[in-house]
């Protein structure tokens, strides 16, 4: 899967309302340039993100995901991101073991004042995902269980 020059990845970004979402805002209002391929979903806390949502993103055809929450110790709800950290690490291991490139599954921390960092992170994530190419889907081998079963409609 070589990187494709014209490939515009679709990236879902789950951003914590209290930090990374504000950072994205700051990056915007400070006129910092960052790639437009991310679709932002605002969440109340990184600890509130069900890993199922992230798996589901790939089911629905996202090329990659980015989750960004508050730095450890800075959680608005005291320890949401500590719980999230364990979940995300396990999810990352799971996805990679199942054969989904780790470049597609990105986690980071970003505070409300780090607009510049946010722009840089998005840059990096887009680069990483471009490098592994488009996500072909779990069903890149066809929809149905065994091809021969549908072969003649029989």
């Amino acid at each position: 899967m070589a990187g494709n020059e014209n490939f515009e990845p679709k990236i879902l970004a789950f951003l914590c309302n209290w930090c990374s979402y504000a950072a994205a805002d700051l990056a915007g209002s400070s006129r910092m340039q960052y790639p437009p391929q991310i679709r932002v979903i605002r969440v109340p806390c990184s600890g509130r993100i069900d890993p199922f949502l992230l798996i589901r993103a790939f089911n629905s055809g996202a090329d990659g995901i980015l989750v960004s929450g508050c730095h450890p110790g800075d959680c608005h709800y005291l320890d949401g991101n500590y719980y999230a950290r364990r979940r995300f690490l396990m999810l990352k291991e799971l996805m990679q073991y199942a054969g989904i490139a780790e470049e597609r599954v990105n986690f980071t921390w970003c505070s409300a004042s780090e607009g510049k960092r946010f722009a840089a992170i998005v840059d990096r994530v887009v680069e990483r995902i471009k490098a592994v190419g488009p996500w072909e889907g779990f069903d890149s081998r066809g929809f149905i269980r065994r091809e021969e079963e549908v072969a003649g409609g029989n």
Partner: protein
Amino acid sequence: MLKVLAKSELGQFLDKLKQEFRVVAPVRRQYGKKERVEYHPVENSEEIILDSQPDTPPKKFFLPQNERLGDELEGETDLEEGEKETLIFGVRSCDLKAVEILKPVFLDDDFTDTYFQKKLEKTVMFGLGCSSRQENCFCDSLEINPLEGKNVPVNMYDDGEKIWFAVRDKELEKFFADLPDGDAEELEEKKGKWQEEFEKTAITLDLPLPFPELKTFEAPFWHKVSANCLGCGVCTYYCPTCFCFGFFWEKHPEGIDRWRTWDSCMFPLFTKHGGGHNPRETQKQRTRQRIMHKFSYHPQNFDGVPACSGCGRCISQCPVNIDLRVILRTVEKYLKEEEGVKSSG
């Protein structure tokens, strides 16, 4: 017409059939450490297994687990023109009976399921008489003859060295013209021996079909026979006669496809209302539904024929080895006792 074929020549014979048919047969597959026999299109005649019951029934050829019904707005899909007929090579009596059980369900007068009908019309089945009892089968307890498949143009027998073909259809005779004739007496003798073996291992079930509905329904044993049931759908998905289904939808850029998929009465979601109420909430109720549907409700609607062909797959595949025969025994015993109480009182 009775013909014989040395097993070593099976490949050549199948090549002849393949010119006109898409030939499907039970073949061996290896998954990890587990070995299975499944119906697949034949590539190599050596992988064909005729001496062991396939783990999956041939139901999928008429009622696939997933079937595209058509676009929601555009209409039904048709089978592709010029498609070869499918020949299923070696279908045992139980599975043939299962197809006979499915027929009146899907081809009734009010509503003919064209999807099922078209597939059935495009399929030819060669029956295979059983020469030995399979792992958990009990078709002879349900008055099915394991040696003689019904409604098939060709019935085969495998005696280990040769395959015997009893050809009953004139049109198919051309495929068998080159083969040497079989000695009918020799075959009868073999069949007699196999028959004896079956009789020795038979389980006699004296079941009043259909089961009396309310009396069986309210019987006290249902909790006991379902206590170890996990609630998975294996028994229904491996059953050659289970036909319950559901719909699902696939959105794609060109439209929305409606698919039909198997569903199972063993799942709680099967009967759960949108509002949350579930008429069959417990595993006991769902197990009872499965048994009662097969042996009481279905025979009531279809001339006393139970929706079970005794293939035994639900027993062999069950993760906790629940035995349908034990449940039937329990029902039989209970009904007899009830009858006894009634006549003496």
